[in-house]
């Protein structure tokens, strides 16, 4: 029926960022020379692992990453519980979870490679093969679907000139459909790498893609 999908005009759009600096929000005590991944071990497993710059050949868990890996181990009563965070770390470093990475994680946690593979393939967030610099995940579940999510998917595919699940020729974009991203009141919700874009309409798609490309990541 309606050509222009319905929009919620009361929302800021991209809620991945706030107008205030971290210093303003957290207070001066908590901002300083902290490592990029945060300070306390309690949050060690909770950092973004879909970074834009990825290097599939870099060594796993060295230096700063070694520290983080060891911090993670201190937070659980068993070594095995570090498996999900460790796979996340591997993906943060290499961009996807390769068979080689899985073997290395298995070795470090005293697990069999087959077991690690069994676990990794259960979860959707581990990329089993390399993806574009920007992994575009469009929610097409019910609330977004009611507000025209299918057209948003089409707009991304048209702009990037790819098919669902494939990577565009320039290596920038992989577009996939996602299940509900828990932002249903602000449809259509699109997750691009670690960022949420809310209230996305098809006509905004070129602008969003251009901006991502120009950020050079």
């Amino acid at each position, binding site marked *: 029926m309606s050509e222009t999908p319905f929009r919620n005009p009361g929302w800021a759009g991209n809620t991945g960022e706030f107008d205030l600096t971290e210093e303003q929000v957290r207070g001066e005590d908590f901002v300083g020379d902290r490592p990029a991944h945060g300070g306390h071990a309690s949050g060690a497993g909770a950092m973004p692992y879909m970074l834009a710059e990825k290097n599939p050949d870099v060594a796993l868990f060295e230096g700063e990453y070694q520290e983080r890996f060891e911090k993670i181990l201190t937070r659980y009563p068993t070594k095995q519980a570090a498996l999900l965070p460790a796979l996340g770390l591997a993906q943060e470093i290499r961009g996807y979870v390769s068979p080689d990475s899985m073997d290395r994680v298995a070795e470090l946690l005293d697990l069999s490679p087959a077991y690690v593979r069994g676990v990794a393939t259960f979860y959707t967030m581990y990329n089993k093969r390399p993806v574009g610099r920007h992994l575009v995940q469009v929610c097409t579940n*019910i609330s977004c*679907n009611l507000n025209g999510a299918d057209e948003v998917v089409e707009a991304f595919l048209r702009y990037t000139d790819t098919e669902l699940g494939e990577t565009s020729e320039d290596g920038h974009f992989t577009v996939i459909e996602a299940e509900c991203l828990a932002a249903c009141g602000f449809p259509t919700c699109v997750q691009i790498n670690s960022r949420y874009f809310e209230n996305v309409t098809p006509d905004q798609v070129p602008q969003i893609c251009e901006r991502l490309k120009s950020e050079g990541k």
Partner: protein
Amino acid sequence: MAYPYVSDHEVRILSKHFGDPMQRRVDTYVERGGYGALKKAFEMGPEKIIDEVKASGLRGRGGAGFPTGVKWSFMPKGTGKPHYLLCNADESEPGTFKDRELMRWDPHQLIEGCLIGAYAIGAQHVYIYCRGEFFETNQVLARAVEDAYARGYIGKDIMGSGVDLDLTVHQGAGAYICGEETGLMNSLEGRRGQPRVKPPFPAAVGAFGMPSTINNVETLCTVPHIVANGGAWYRQWGTEKSPGTKLFCVSGHVNRPGNYELPLGFPLQKLIDDVCGGMRGGNALKAVIPGGSSVPIINAEEVSRCTLDYEGCVAVGTMLGCASVIVMDETTDVVKQVRRMVDFYAHESCGQCTPCREGSAWTARILRRIEEGRGTEEDLDTLMDTTQQMVGTTICVLSDSVAAPVQSSINKFRDEYLALIRRGERVGAA
């Protein structure tokens, strides 16, 4: 301007500071009275806390509505084993978007609730299992935890009470089924997130084989307010059996979708008309799913009779679930939307139980056939029959969740199925 939308009907307890990023700052939180309830809790002692939570009548906000105080009292005492409190922050039920907002706007409220809960059940360590896709939320939470450690609200000898508590944020990796309580435990332990057969129940054998309790984010966020103000105070809102306030996540075809905190028992029609500014474009209402995609769909007539409390929803043949109100107007293609929901369950089934794994996949296939105009009337009987075999026959209730939308929509919107089957005009194209 205030948080996307607010309404005069709201009673904002949990959502009071939505839209104010300063609330994330530990010092601001404390200035506004934060961590006061934790101090009071240490003075009260575990038993009194549990009594107060029982008196409030607080029911779990994760979907099942089980009384929280009663759940806490199941935890064994004096076992000498480690106990765990798990916070279920895996929010992924289609239509639900409250936990993310609670965590990103007011992370310390949740941390305080977790600490009180852990102290009440004798746990030493809290794990907040936060959905993997929530990168921003995970960071907000992790930083708040770090700040709380630095200020001495988490850690050793908290505020001179002699109590030691630890808290870890655990990032999920993308699987709806990890929201199911035992699936979450398996996932936390570094396994596939497949639900476990019960019994044994988590209070006996939970995470890492130890006694554990699992609560939803919203449940735990409510706890500091109950401890601070008392159970009787909380009962001034809501109904006898469903006391208190609840966040309603409204999405779909209304003018002002969003999160609204309302007393339980609020009329559904009034929520749509007054709180959410009515239907978009003045369209007629066709159907509502009041509790997230796992509950039966109701039609406009039932909407006009439905009150939003656990009993009121049951009275019109549906459930409150996690109060995710999905509103559909007259242009909605019901068959397509039901098919989309079933696709979701087919994708998310963990595959352990045959009725769920096979049933969800076949149901999705038959629905697609009907949607594409290749269905027959017998298909409707097959759908009813197949989904009936998926109810109560599996390890967890994901399987039952497939039956809810399919059976209720065939019962209430049979005409739309028939129209497609008879290759009539497609109804709407939302």
